[in-house]
């Protein structure tokens, strides 16, 4: 009897620590096993690191997108920020071929923060729904890039700028993996800080948070700024990995949102963990890799993706809401 209760308690504790992310960890595990079965060489250090390197931009974008979604908003402009970042870097190098990469990269991060700041201020002060604000920002940036370059950016990205997306530290560790780990660690620290809790509280119930003294507007603006910075960092990685392209960030906003949703983060805010969101990004990348290795035809690829996304989110939504209710009933409403 006591053992049963203890097991029950442990189970509950495990479930609670996994939170709403449990389905995505399961999905990721399944995909990683399938990858091992499909291709034995997948876990050779070089290849696995290459896989992480490929996933890095999406993971960083997902972390940024998580901050915005968990406080109850959306950021649809991140893909356009990635494209604008890559194109802007190429244009800068077209005019100043000897610009130091650190300055160009810092400039990009600043510009990303600025785009996020504009998104945040318009959403909070003018009360434009973020769906509309960031959609508008996406169109503005896409149009501006098109107007600026006429569809074909000038200049090349030099080797030292591309080092972060393409090169390796110590000869084996891709810089992109380092950047990804650093961004991930920062995001986790941020979410454990007071600000992180404030952000979740804002998404859970804006009014309650405001009444308890949270400056909800400021929290949201900061979330948008961080999402913009994450997108600019992703732009540095994407530009480094694959070079100049006028379509560098196409579709990234949807992939990032999908990754966050796969991670069990509730749209509308207030629930979900940043680690699960990043695991969602890894799952998505693992899925793309698996489909490629299995030789799934291009026509069928999106169908398979769609089915898996719906299944993962569906299973997550169904099971966990029931569990939550039961827990709420039995424990007298402990906040999760």
């Amino acid at each position, binding site marked *: 009897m006591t053992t049963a209760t203890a097991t029950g308690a442990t189970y509950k504790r495990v479930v609670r620590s996994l939170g709403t992310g449990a389905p995505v960890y399961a999905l990721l595990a399944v995909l990683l096993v399938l990858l091992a079965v499909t291709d034995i060489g997948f876990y050779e250090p070089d290849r696995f690191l290459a896989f992480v390197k490929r996933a890095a931009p999406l993971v960083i974008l997902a972390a940024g997108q998580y901050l915005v979604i968990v406080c109850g908003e959306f950021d649809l402009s991140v893909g356009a920020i990635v494209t604008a970042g890559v194109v802007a870097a190429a244009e800068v190098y077209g005019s100043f071929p000897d610009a130091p990469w650190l300055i160009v990269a810092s400039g990009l991060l600043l510009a990303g923060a600025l785009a996020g700041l504009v998104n945040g201020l318009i959403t909070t002060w003018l009360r434009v729904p973020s769906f509309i604000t960031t959609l508008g920002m996406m169109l503005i940036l896409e149009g501006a890039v098109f107007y600026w370059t006429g*569809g074909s950016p000038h200049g090349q990205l030099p080797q030292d700028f591309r080092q972060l997306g393409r090169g390796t530290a110590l000869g084996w560790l891709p810089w992109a993996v380092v950047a990804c780990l650093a961004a991930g660690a920062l995001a986790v620290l941020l979410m454990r800080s007071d600000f992180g809790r404030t952000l979740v509280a804002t998404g859970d119930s804006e009014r309650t948070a405001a009444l308890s003294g949270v400056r909800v507007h400021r929290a949201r603006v900061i979330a948008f700024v961080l999402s913009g910075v994450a997108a600019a960092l992703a732009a540095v990685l994407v530009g480094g990995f*694959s070079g100049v392209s006028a379509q560098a960030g196409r579709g990234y906003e949807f992939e990032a949102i999908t990754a966050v949703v796969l991670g069990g983060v509730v749209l509308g805010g207030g629930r979900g963990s940043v680690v699960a969101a990043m695991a969602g990004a890894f799952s998505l990348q693992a899925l793309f890799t698996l489909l490629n290795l299995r030789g799934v035809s*291009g*026509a069928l*690829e999106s*169908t398979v*993706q769609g089915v898996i996304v719906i299944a993962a989110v569906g299973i997550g939504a169904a099971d966990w809401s029931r569990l939550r209710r039961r827990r709420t009933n039995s424990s007298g409403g402990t906040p999760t």
Partner: protein
Amino acid sequence: MNPRTVRRRTLASAAVLLSGALLAACSSDTPLDAPAAASGSTETGGDKPSKFFERSEYKRQLALARETPRGPAGRPWEQMLEPQMTSTAQYKKKGSGGVHLCFSNAGVFNPWRQVGLKTMKAEVRLHKDISDFTVLDAQGKDDKQISDIQELAGSKDCDALVVSPNTTATLTPAVKEACDKLPVIVFDRGVETDCAVTFVNPIGGYGYGAVAADFLVDKVEPEGKILALRISPGVDVLETRWSAAKLAFDKSELDVADVKFTDGDPAKTKSIVADAISRHGSIDGVWMDSGATAVAAVEAFEDAGVDVPPITGEDQQDFLEAWKDKKLTAIAPTYPTFQWRTPVIAALRVLDGKPVPKEWKLPQPTVTQANLDEYLRDGMPPLHYAMCGCQRMPGYPGDWGGKK
């Protein structure tokens, strides 16, 4: 069930719908380097590798590629292959005054079309007798282009109408209607009517695909593994490129190890090539249905620490630069952007009452090791197309984004 739960439920289902729809949307919205070319109806049955394969057209294009074009050498946009001339006396412009030329463009949604439109505008500036040039941009939307064509053919006082259709079947009725009102010149992609005075286009997809495949058959040792990179399935001009290549590979001793779709995305291309290298041990040749992602493929070999095998690309500047700098074994068939000059020349001929070919087939040159230096010019933007035929036009290279 309290209201919060309801809200969560709604949001969750919205999320599912959203993500499903978005995934489908972003993966089907593939950028195309080269627009869809003339597509007649394709018959089915027989010994054909794909439903897009039409043996007679395949043979015709391969024969055209061996023909010597008529017209001034060095000005391929004025040349014609096997022209069947048609009289245009009925369209001869009466009265004096400048020509008002009108153009309904499918859109400028990729670098190929950007370079093309710039070249067309430069061609218009060369002709003093054109007093007005009206361009309506359909932004890739069929419905917008239908109303564009109606507007240009109806209310505006256009003397001739140039159309680059967005899609073949949907635009056919609008073009037919316009034909009753003024001379129409169709180019780049086709429509299912021959009411236009002339249809301008290069040799076509079979010619493109075969040139690239024959190069690999020649350069790669027998039993070599070929990786075929395609943009996306179901687009006729890309399907014809691949079906011609497949035929050549089937006849050869080469082994097509993989056929993959890249969506035209360099990052995805790099991943696919890296995976293919590690899975097959080695890749001995790369065939591409367009060259926009060729540089990414080259880099994947470099990053994997192996030599770049023979590779095919296109006349995009970044690929030509990589070809020269890295001393690649490469070839670049083209879907030449100089074809944007021809409709302007054709329109002026028609309004002058001079005969034009019913189908104005242009040559489709190939960039090879021998003529690489002729087409590669330093200082052009990475997404410029070298086969623009614009090198001697006023404003070059600045107007095309190049350094003077």
